[in-house]
């Protein structure tokens, strides 16, 4: 990576990998500027110096630092990496700032999403068979929102597309992985 970044030694000073407090600060800056979750390996590669253990320890320090009173962010490990996010406690303040209400999914969208989540990979035909209604537009809406993705083609006549959920789906519902989806049995226990 460093080859493409520092092609001109005159302009780009020699990279000095940060350590200690500066490693934590650099990681905070990187996560902030990235927006999207960053895998540990990406951080390690870009920092070119600290070991994976060093970076992980710095991430843990950053995570603890975010828990101090007076902080509004949280460092979270989601499906695709580490990400700074607003603390859920301050979601009302953020929403007031934007003058928005939380984005809602329609009942149809939630149904399709639930089917995709629990039955993936599924085809559109399967979804429509279970729901008994055409579901193309709803499915497209979910694809556009990044909650559902095309994850393959079924080896059957017509080779229909198969759909599955995305990392954003997991993040949105606060799930560390698909295995964390509650099972029907667990629901029954709650009754």
């Amino acid at each position, binding site marked *: 990576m460093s080859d493409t970044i520092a092609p001109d030694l005159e302009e780009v000073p020699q990279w000095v990998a940060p350590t200690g407090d500066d490693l934590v600060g650099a990681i905070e*800056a990187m996560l*902030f*500027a*990235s*927006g*999207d*979750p960053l895998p540990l390996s990406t951080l390690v590669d870009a920092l070119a110096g600290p070991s994976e253990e060093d970076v992980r320890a710095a991430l843990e320090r950053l995570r603890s630092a975010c828990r101090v009173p007076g902080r509004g962010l949280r460092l979270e490990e989601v499906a695709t990496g580490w*990400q700074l*996010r*607003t*603390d*859920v406690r*301050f*979601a009302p303040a*953020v*929403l007031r700032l*934007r003058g928005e209400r*939380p*984005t*809602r*999914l329609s*009942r149809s969208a*939630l*149904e399709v*999403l*639930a*089917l995709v*989540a*629990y039955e993936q990979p599924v085809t559109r035909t399967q979804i429509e068979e*279970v*729901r*008994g209604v055409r579901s193309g537009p709803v499915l497209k809406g979910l694809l556009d929102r*990044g909650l559902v993705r095309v994850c393959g083609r079924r080896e059957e006549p017509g080779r229909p597309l198969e759909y599955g959920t995305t990392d*954003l789906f997991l*993040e*949105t*519902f*606060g*799930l560390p992985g698909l295995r*964390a*989806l*509650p*099972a*029907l049995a667990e*629901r029954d226990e*709650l009754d």
Partner: protein
Amino acid sequence: MAEPARALASGHVPGLPGLGAWTVHTDVFDGPLDLLLHLVKRDGIDLKHLPIARVCDAYLDFLERLRQVDLNVASEYLVMAATLCHLKSLDLLPRKPTAIAETEEEEEDPRERFARRLEEYDLLRRRAEALDRQPMIGRDTFVRAQGLPNAAEVLDPTVDAFGLLEIYHAILIRADEPDAVVRFGESGPDFATCARFVLDALGGPGGTEELGMILGRWQRRIERVLTFLAVLEMARLGWIGLDQRAHLGPVTVVAKVASDVDLSQLTTWVEKRDAPPPEDDA
């Protein structure tokens, strides 16, 4: 950029064919004033006391070297050369008497005007450098990139993972129901019957029942559809009320009339809808 400029200025220009891509006016110097300022700084000349003759000679000398290494010199550099030669020629003439020079600024000596112009350009250069020292977004500092929507911002607070499960469960139950089949040759369900069915289920004014429960009692989809339409029509007439307490929550039907209410209004509507289109008068 600084490197070729130094090479040219010091005269150690390697006249290699490979360097023919240099074009003076765009790449190395940013116009004749830039070149002049460079020469002035190189020679440690005080801008306040600009020796026109010396500057002119240095400038012409430099252009000559460029010509020798076969670099194209843009026309504006030649215009500047002509200007400098003119100013230098003024040095050979006696200066105007002081008394006249003091009358108006319009009478300012062109050499002084030129020196001022160079000073002004020098100030601009310094300002540009000062601006360049400011922390700049994209170079020294970065703002937050808008990545995936923040969960706290998009999550519908009424639906969490368990909510999703409820919905999945509901679909499964629905899917287990007998297939909705329309049997041909059988007498179709009757709209009034379906309406009466709802009113009976409610059992008179104030009686309530969940819409889903009422519909669920029918086996066939066509009956459920007609019943649903009957509910909508009766709600429109004010015979029943519909109440949904929570977003996506169950819909409760509330009766406002007796269950034996006269259904003629309703049937009129149905008959109108079902009546064949009137004959064309033509």
